[in-house]
C-alpha cells in the first residue's frame, strides 16, 4: 500500500499542508510578539493547538498580560476535551499510547477519525493526520519565524477559507441521519449567536449543547 493511496491519507496530507501554510503567519506573529525560535516551536509541539497559539501570540504581541493571554488560549483549547470521547472508541493500545494520542487531538485529527466508517481507517486517519500535521505545522512555524515580516498577507491567498471548506467536507458523514442534521443545524445557530456575546472558544463549547435536541430526535425516531 503506497503512502497516500488511501483516501483518508490523501485528505490527511492535504490538511497537513494547509496547517503548514497557516504555520507561516503563526511563526511571523510569534516572532513579532517577541518569542524566540525555541519558544515558537515549543508551543507548536507541546501546545499543538493552532487557534490557541494564534490567540496567545496575538495578545502578547499586542502588549497584553501573559495570564490573560494564557486564559484566552486555554478557553480555545478546552474543546479538545470534547474530542477525547469521540476518538477513544477507535484508539487502541495501552495507557502510554493513549497518553501520546491525547497530544495529537485537534479539530483536524478528531474530524478525520470520526469521518471514517471503518474503525481501522479511523485509527489510521487519526495517527497519519496527527503526525503529518505535527511535522508540517512545526516546519511552517520555523519558516514563519525565519521569514519574519517578509511574508505576504496569507489572506491574499484565500487561506482563511481553506479550513472552513475542509470541515464542510468532514461534516458531511455526520449529516447522514436526521438527528445528525438537527444537531448540526442547532450547533451552527448556537455558535453564531454566541460569537458576538461570548469570548473566543466559548461558541464551540456551547454548540455541544445541540447534542441534547439531537438525542431527542434520535429517541423519537426509535420510539415510532
Amino acid at each position, binding site marked *: 500500500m503506497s503512502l497516500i493511496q488511501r483516501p483518508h491519507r490523501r485528505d490527511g496530507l492535504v490538511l497537513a499542508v494547509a496547517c503548514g501554510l497557516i504555520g507561516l503567519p503563526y511563526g511571523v506573529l510569534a516572532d513579532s510578539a517577541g518569542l524566540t525560535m525555541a519558544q515558537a516551536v515549543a*508551543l507548536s509541539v507541546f501546545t499543538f493547538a493552532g487557534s490557541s497559539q494564534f490567540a496567545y501570540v496575538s495578545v502578547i504581541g499586542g502588549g497584553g498580560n501573559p495570564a490573560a493571554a494564557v486564559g484566552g488560549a486555554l478557553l480555545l483549547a478546552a474543546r479538545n476535551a*470534547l474530542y477525547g*470521547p469521540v476518538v477513544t472508541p477507535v*484508539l487502541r493500545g495501552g495507557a502510554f499510547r493513549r497518553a501520546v494520542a491525547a497530544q495529537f487531538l485537534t479539530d483536524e485529527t478528531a474530524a478525520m477519525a470520526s469521518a471514517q466508517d471503518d474503525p481501522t481507517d479511523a485509527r489510521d486517519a487519526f495517527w497519519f493526520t496527527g503526525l503529518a500535521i505535527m511535522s508540517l505545522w512545526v516546519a511552517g512555524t520555523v519558516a514563519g519565524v525565519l521569514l519574519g515580516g517578509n511574508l505576504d498577507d496569507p489572506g491574499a491567498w484565500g487561506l482563511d*477559507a481553506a479550513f472552513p471548506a475542509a470541515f464542510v*467536507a468532514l461534516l458531511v458523514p455526520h449529516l447522514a441521519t436526521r438527528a445528525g442534521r438537527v444537531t448540526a443545524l442547532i450547533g451552527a445557530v448556537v455558535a453564531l449567536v454566541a460569537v458576538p456575546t461570548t469570548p473566543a472558544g466559548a461558541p464551540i463549547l456551547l454548540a455541544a449543547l445541540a447534542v441534547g435536541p439531537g*438525542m431527542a430526535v434520535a429517541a423519537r425516531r426509535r420510539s415510532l
Partner: protein
Amino acid sequence: MSWTALVVLSAGAYAFKLAGVVAGERFADRLAPVTTLLPAALFSALVVTMAMADGPSLVVDARLIGVAAGVLAVTRRAPMVVVIMVAMAVTALVRVVA
C-alpha cells in the same frame, strides 16, 4: 519572554486533551449516544465560526463566498484537495476583484 506562560499553556492544553481521552475510556458506554452526535455539533459550529467570525463580530466577506463555493464542490463529491483549492481560489479572486 519568559517560559512560564508557555509551560502553563502547554500543560493546560494537554490536560484538556487527556481529560477527554480518560473520560472517553471510563464512560464509553454511557457517552456513546452523545459521542455519536457530538461531531455534528462541533464541526458545524467550527465551519460557521471559521467562515464568518472576525474577532467578536460576524462578517460576510470574500471568505464566506469562497466557503460557499467549497460547499458546492462538496455537493459535487469533489475530493478534499479540490474543495480546499476551490474555496481558496474563489476567496482570493473575490478579494482581487473587490
